[in-house]
């Protein structure tokens, strides 16, 4: 249940950014969660709601963009999407893949006023 620790980090960053930009109220937080992070989006929503109850961030919408695992096969050079965590090139069967998407655990944006 490290989603709770992650929710606490999100809250800290959102508080810092919204103070910096003089936001009086935050309405939405946009997150990117890569499939390789092992972070469960629903557990994260729950942890965020539980830790913001009775705070100025209570009720903020969380918009999660799930990022699939993508990259390139270093043997045949084709662009690939890794499904079900099988890191084998679907075209040539090689295992040496360069992965460049799927590790994201980012706050993309904040909407507020």
């Amino acid at each position, binding site marked *: 249940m490290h989603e709770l620790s992650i929710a606490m980090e999100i809250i800290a960053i959102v508080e810092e*950014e919204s103070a910096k930009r003089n936001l009086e109220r935050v309405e939405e937080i946009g997150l990117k969660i890569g499939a*390789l992070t092992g972070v469960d989006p629903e557990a994260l929503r729950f942890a965020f709601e539980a830790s913001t109850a009775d705070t100025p961030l209570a009720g903020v919408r969380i918009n999660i963009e799930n990022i699939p695992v993508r990259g390139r096969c270093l043997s045949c050079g084709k662009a690939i999407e890794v499904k079900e965590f099988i890191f084998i090139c679907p075209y040539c069967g090689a295992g040496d893949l360069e992965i460049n998407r799927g590790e994201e655990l980012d706050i993309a944006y904040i909407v507020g006023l």
Partner: protein
Amino acid sequence: MNKRITVEKKVLSENDRLAAEIRRKLSEKRILALNLVSSPGSGKTSLLEKTLKALNSELNMALIAGDVQTENDADRLKKAGGKIVRPIVTGGACHLDAKMITGVLEELDLDEVDILFIENVGNLVCPSSYDLGEDMKVVLISTTEGDDKPLKYPSMFRRSSVLVINKTDLLGLSDFDIEQVKNNARMINADLIVIELSCLKETGLETWYEWLRERTAAKKGR
């Protein structure tokens, strides 16, 4: 009027910053840092006990033992001959983070240390997200577990460099298929180094020791 503010910041950026700082400090001192991860009961502490007994005379080892509660693991490592052993009791947290490691490293004299072992909390999910500044993660699995564990916890196997399969003395007593585990793990991480051993019967350990010697020497640039 609502404003949309682009943030594009990593949620764990503070952890990553501290981890990078740890990595820099340990690299300056040419210390090999290994983060040991597994389910509870796979044999992380047992492997470290054996390693201390076998290599204490040739390598200086520092050990950090993380647990949700109790300092039992750290006590076992001290009894096994560990000279620099520090417990981290997380008090509920399911993983170690870089801040905890930074706090412990400040108290330690690392000048003569060759290897830092960090025994993470027994958990195959949460510790995978937290960089501790290690050179490599070593993931353990034991033959009393399911051979589909790599498929169930792909992030951890993807981010580890070595897979230690422990309790090989019990092979055949359950339906654990060691070839299946290796195949499953390599589908997730083709570069994974696999070491099979039994801490209890002390078989296969020499391969692990030899790997540690090689990596320590490489880190020292010898």
